[in-house]
């Protein structure tokens, strides 16, 4: 059982998805991050969580956590006015 692997079909799909994510352009990331008000809010939360996670792991000073998030706050503010 320790040598058991998920079906190759599933692994191929997940690897293809991982390639899609890793190979995405910045414009695509930005578009996905601002697709809706909900995704923009989730993006903000994710970025803060990510910076906190990495900063805690490497014991980085608070400056790293406070780096201006992406996308810019003006765009986020505008998106939050839109209905989801």
């Amino acid at each position, binding site marked *: *059982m*320790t040598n*058991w692997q*998920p*079906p*190759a*079909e*599933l692994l*191929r*799909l*997940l690897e*293809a*998805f*991982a*390639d*899609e*994510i*890793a*190979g*995405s*352009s*910045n414009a*695509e*990331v*930005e*578009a*996905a*991050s601002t*697709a*809706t008000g*909900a*995704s923009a*809010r*989730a*993006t903000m*939360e*994710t*970025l803060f*969580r*990510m*910076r906190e*996670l*990495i900063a805690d*792991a*490497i014991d*980085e000073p608070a400056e*790293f956590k406070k*780096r201006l*998030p*992406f*996308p810019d706050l003006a765009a986020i503010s505008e998106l939050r006015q839109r209905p989801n």
Partner: protein
Amino acid sequence: MERPTVTAPAVIIAEEPSRDIAAALVALSSADLLRLSALARLWTRGMPETLSWADVLQEAVARALDGSRKWPLGVPILAFLSGVMRSICDDHWRHEAREARVIVRSTEAADARADEVGTSHPDPERVVAAAQALSDVYDLFAGDNAALKIITGLADGLTAAEICEVYGLSEREYDTTRKRMRRALLRADFDWS
């Protein structure tokens, strides 16, 4: 036509043996951080609720920082951390499988059966879980016929050209659909459950 595997722009890769993981992590752009979180959510899908994508990512970062996982030369850091997270999730499933086998081994009669299962066949629960995971992936794009065709093609190991030929997709339709799928995977509120 887009290829199934594309290269991320401005990737951060290891250049020398003494490379500094911490410096590379700090240098990640916001877009890279979002990609990394999307990768974490991808590999963590289907895991118990007690184990979040952030937990898996934190463990991957910790293993990279303490050197228990070496960053190979020339490998982009996102690809490296993606591989570590995948490995962590695989380890979790193997651990679960071992735990289940220990329970089965509590009786002598079951011991023989556990050995048989352990050496040759996956347990039914894992088979069901794998089938469910595959079904979940298809459900993510339910209603998007072009996406479902591409997913089926990718699962079968077909190239982009083969997918277009087999499923009657134009190059433009293929590229547009891949872009739509990519955006969905990148969304921070994308729900894998």
